[in-house]
């Protein structure tokens, strides 16, 4: 009983350090070791399970492709009223021209078209065709400059006109083998005189040097640069003081420029594809311009973003709500079928003599050792109209030859096959719970005057509820996400939402929608789990012991 107990300060260990720190230090070793032991599994789960799920969940709202591909257009479109009857103004089309020029070079316009096609059918071909013909618009200006002087045809001339002498010297003979290309440097006097041209050329230079990795010096500039030059000259740029390569040609162009023929971007785009004259296409672009969108989720519940916010899709496009409903309903039916069929089996397993019970247990486990595909295919053989069951029924005379039962490629087939496949998941938890209930409870109930039924219902059954709960959660959650079996025996009326998810992930490649459907499924399961916890209590779930 030294100072540790008498002083008012923190309790000290034998060596004088505070006891808490001393304890933490001694525990840290154990914790570290425990963590290291589970580290491989933790990392594995993180990489192969948590990370992909997080990524998919992110994809269900992620929508950066529109603003990334059409940055200027999305900004310009902000001022446009989607509810009006007017097309966006010329500035928007000009921005679209600039964006499309770059997107086409990057070959990004087709994926953008695919993305927007999910929301607005037909937009995919609009972007594809516009990409092919985007050069036509720039060529209106380009041709006139080139007609004026062949100087404008060659990329080298542009480079020498706009670049500093030192850069031109170093860029002239650059080859890929030389390593990093010397970055474009603009001549200060030209940059002051022709600001728009320089900006356009800089875009072109950045793309060529950084993304395409071609020698900028020899590349012919995009139509956008010619347009910008024309705009600069038309804005009466002062080029008279310029000297250096091409200065004379430039001065000549400055004089000729006001006389150039120009086109309206709007007319040019509409000329390429009349889709650009459709308000719906523009609305789709504006609606999905944001980086994050609820669009996939709305789509997953048969809704879409309209001019006034979320609205129901046309009836002929509604599919997911019905599929979700069917998935939940059939999973419930399967769960109850498993309870009804599994309960007596589990009871037998728990109450038969050891030898017989072991044999029965092997029969229960046998399906586990058989391939899922084999079991499902076996049901196809059993259930089809020319199948085993129908043949036997016809042979017995219970069913007429022309009245063979339709038991496959519909909900019946899915329910039968999935009940069979998921049955062990119900039986095993129920069995392990029943095994722990001593038979004396039933005897006690009977000695107290209960009939067999009362003893079962009041005494035995309530004690098996944790097993039923565990089995039901297991079966229901497995059923709700089941894919292979419904796909094989479900036909069109017996498939689950998982079928659509798989379709969007592997066929339509609309990963965002697939992810949204999956996320909804996940949330539904979590809600049910939560509800179960509230009603039954998750502590009451026993998988064994």
């Amino acid at each position, binding site marked *: 009983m030294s100072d540790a107990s008498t002083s008012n300060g923190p309790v000290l260990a034998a060596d004088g350090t505070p006891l808490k720190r001393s304890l933490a230090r001694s525990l840290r070793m154990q914790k570290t070791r425990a963590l290291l032991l589970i580290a491989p599994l933790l990392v594995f789960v993180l990489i192969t399970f948590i990370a992909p799920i997080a990524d998919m969940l992110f994809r269900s709202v992620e929508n950066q492709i529109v603003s990334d591909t059409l940055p200027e257009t999305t900004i310009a479109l902000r001022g446009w009223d989607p509810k009006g009857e007017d097309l966006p103004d010329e500035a928007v089309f000009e921005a679209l021209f600039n964006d499309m020029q770059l997107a086409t070079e990057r070959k990004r316009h087709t994926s953008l078209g695919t993305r927007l096609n999910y929301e607005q059918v037909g937009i995919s071909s609009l972007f594809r065709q516009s990409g092919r013909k985007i050069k036509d618009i720039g060529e209106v200006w380009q041709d006139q400059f080139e007609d004026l002087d062949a100087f404008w045809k060659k990329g080298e001339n542009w480079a020498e006109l706009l670049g500093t002498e030192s850069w031109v010297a170093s860029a002239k003979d650059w080859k890929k083998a030389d390593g990093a290309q010397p970055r474009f440097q603009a001549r200060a006097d030209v940059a002051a005189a022709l600001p728009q041209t320089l900006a356009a050329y800089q875009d072109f230079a950045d793309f060529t040097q950084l993304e395409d990795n071609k020698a900028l010096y020899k590349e012919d500039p995009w139509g956008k640069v010619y347009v910008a030059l024309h705009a600069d000259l038309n804005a009466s740029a002062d080029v008279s003081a310029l000297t250096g390569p091409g200065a004379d040609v430039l001065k000549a162009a400055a004089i000729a420029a006001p006389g150039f023929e120009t086109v309206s971007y709007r007319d040019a785009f509409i000329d390429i594809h009349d889709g650009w004259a459709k308000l719906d296409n523009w609305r789709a672009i504006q609606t999905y311009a944001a980086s994050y969108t609820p669009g996939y989720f709305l789509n997953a519940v048969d809704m879409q973003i309209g001019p006034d916010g979320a609205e129901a899709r046309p009836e002929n496009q509604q599919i997911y709500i019905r599929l979700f409903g069917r998935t939940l309903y059939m999973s419930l039916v399967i769960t109850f079928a498993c309870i009804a069929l599994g309960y007596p089996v589990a009871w037998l397993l728990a109450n038969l003599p050891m030898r017989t019970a072991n044999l029965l247990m092997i029969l229960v486990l046998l399906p586990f050792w058989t391939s899922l595909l084999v079991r499902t295919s076996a049901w196809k053989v059993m259930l089809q109209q020319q199948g085993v069951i129908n043949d036997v029924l016809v042979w017995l005379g219970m069913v007429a030859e022309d009245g063979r039962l339709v038991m496959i490629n519909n909900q019946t087939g899915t329910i039968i096959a999935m009940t069979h496949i998921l049955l062990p998941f119900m039986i095993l938890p129920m069995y392990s719970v029943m095994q722990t209930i001593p038979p004396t409870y039933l005897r006690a109930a009977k000695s*107290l005057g209960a009939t*067999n039924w009362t003893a079962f219902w009041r005494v035995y059954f309530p004690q098996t509820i944790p097993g039923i709960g565990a089995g039901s959660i297991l079966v229901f959650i497995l059923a709700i996400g089941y894919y292979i079996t419904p796909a094989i025996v479900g036909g069109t009326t017996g498939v689950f939402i998982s079928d659509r998810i798989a379709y969007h992930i592997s066929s339509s490649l609309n990963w965002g929608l697939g992810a949204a459907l999956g996320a909804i499924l996940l949330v539904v399961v979590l809600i049910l789990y939560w509800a179960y916890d509230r009603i039954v209590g998750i502590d009451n779930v026993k998988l064994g012991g």
Partner: protein
Amino acid sequence: MNISSTLGPKLSAQATRQKRGAILADGSSQDAFVEFERVQKSYDGENLVVKDLNLAMPRGEFLTMLGPSGSGKTTCLMMLAGFETATHGDIRLGGESINNIPPHKRGIGMVFQNYALFPHMTVAENLSFPLEVRKMAKSEREKKVKRALDMVQMGAFGGRRPAQLSGGQQQRIALARALVFEAELVLIDEPLGALDKQLREHMQFEIKRIADNLGITVVYVTHDQTEALTMSDRVAVFDDGRIQQLAPPDLLYEAPENSFVAQFIGENNTLEGVIEQIKGDTCLVKLDNGDLIDAKPVNVTKAGERTRVSIRPERVEFNKDRLSPDAHLLKATVKEFIYMGDIFRTRISVAGNDDFIIKTRNAPDQVRLEPGAEIEIGWLAQDCRALDA
């Protein structure tokens, strides 16, 4: 509050006790409450677990079935409760054969070895269960549950779950549940095995007190002979599927009818030999080493028969002054002296038996025998019982 009157119109315990004497005399009687007649039980069709069981119990008796495990006592209890059917014979309750009555209609209260309290119900719900299945009105149920809980002094525990109770408390609840529906016959199956010694002794007393107060008939199964001797009106000693002896505790201890009972109940010294001669209620036994001793013939009939004599350690005398002058004495060597507080336990070697025990009371004038001392021992002829070999 007089509990026996509140729990139903029962015979008073005292009256029953007196009535019992008349029935004991011939073993089976017209007013026997519980009766086994020529009952046999076999599980596999080859071996009999219960062989020819005959037993009659008057109303209000506390009867204990005592025996080693596998002796058939629990099977008898289960047949009485209705969970096992008799292979042959008749079991009667209140004069009527119950062979074909299912357990839930027998109205027999039962306390199970592990209590079998329903874990998903509270204590009160457990007690209420037998009343509910009898379709009793709610108010009446509550009254009876409360009364039964008070009877076992667990009135404050109605809202608890069985898992929240200690072993002794669970035991009380199990007893209360078996009694709450006013069963006249209560079967109790080794209920105290899981309790520690002190609690066990307390519960023995408690069960006995409640049974006496209510005047109920109790069949109690145990393998603990102390429990059997302290609680019972009569004890049925089971072995090998038969009742070896059915007697009140004092008779069972002092007058065992065969070697098994003598060995099984209490501590016992045995010596083996041949009957030399029988004279009325004494006989002379020649031990295997040639020594002669006095004994009381119990189940030996004629000279020349082999016998095993049985004598309790506290009835052995080594002070010659206290024995009759003509008594036969045996020479013995003291092997070990054990001080046990209230008694001394001395192990001696006599007539080739190294485990012969003498118990003496720790009194001021008591002699403490030293190991190695040569002594002579003897006994009164009626304390030494010549039994079957």
